[in-house]
């Protein structure tokens, strides 16, 4: 929770720097300051690519799923032909992988890889 607060504060602080300082920094530098929180010594937020890879691995290793069809945009029920029970199983596996507790209301909404990736990436406690 503290890291989410920190991210919110840093998001607000970052805006004035880019507005008037961009001509002093090289383009490479701009990328560094926007993608890395330079003020935090302990960056505990996951990279989006890591999240995507881990979630796709979980979906691919599900016995009923054909691994070649899995992309980050697949819908569990429409594209992979799974049913709602399989949906719950996949979300359980995602919870265990990222050590999260997803409440039932949120879990019912997660229908596709894209939504799962969004949820995990935006969750402050994911690890």
């Amino acid at each position: 929770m503290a890291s989410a607060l920190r991210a919110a504060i840093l998001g607000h602080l970052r805006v004035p720097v880019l507005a008037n300082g961009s001509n002093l920094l090289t383009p490479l530098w701009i990328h560094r300051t926007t993608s890395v929180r330079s003020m935090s010594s302990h960056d505990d937020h996951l990279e989006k690519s890591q999240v995507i890879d881990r979630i796709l691995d979980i979906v691919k290793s599900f016995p009923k799923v054909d691994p070649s069809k899995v992309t980050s945009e697949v819908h569990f029920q429409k594209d992979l032909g799974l049913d709602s029970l399989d949906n719950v199983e996949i979300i359980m596996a995602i919870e265990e992988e990222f050590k999260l507790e997803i409440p039932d209301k949120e879990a019912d909404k997660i229908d596709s890889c894209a939504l799962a990736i969004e949820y995990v990436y935006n969750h402050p406690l994911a690890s």
Partner: protein
Amino acid sequence: MATPSRTEIISLFRSLLRSARQFPDYNIREYTKRRTIDSFRHNKTLSDPSSIAAAFSDGQSQLQVARRQSVVYSLYAPKIKSIMDVKP
């Protein structure tokens, strides 16, 4: 009891899987997961409301059993973890 709705059934499924996580013993954890998945899948095709309600209440009593047993098992948890729990 009236026929359970789809969300109630999904919620029961999820509660059973979550209760499986509380067990310190690897074997029982896996058994609980396997058994719930198999029985829910087996009963998926039921269409008769009374049999659906019967299966649902059966599932609920099993959930209570699992919750009680996870507490009892935790009291006497093995000191040495199962080899399957040790990450390589």
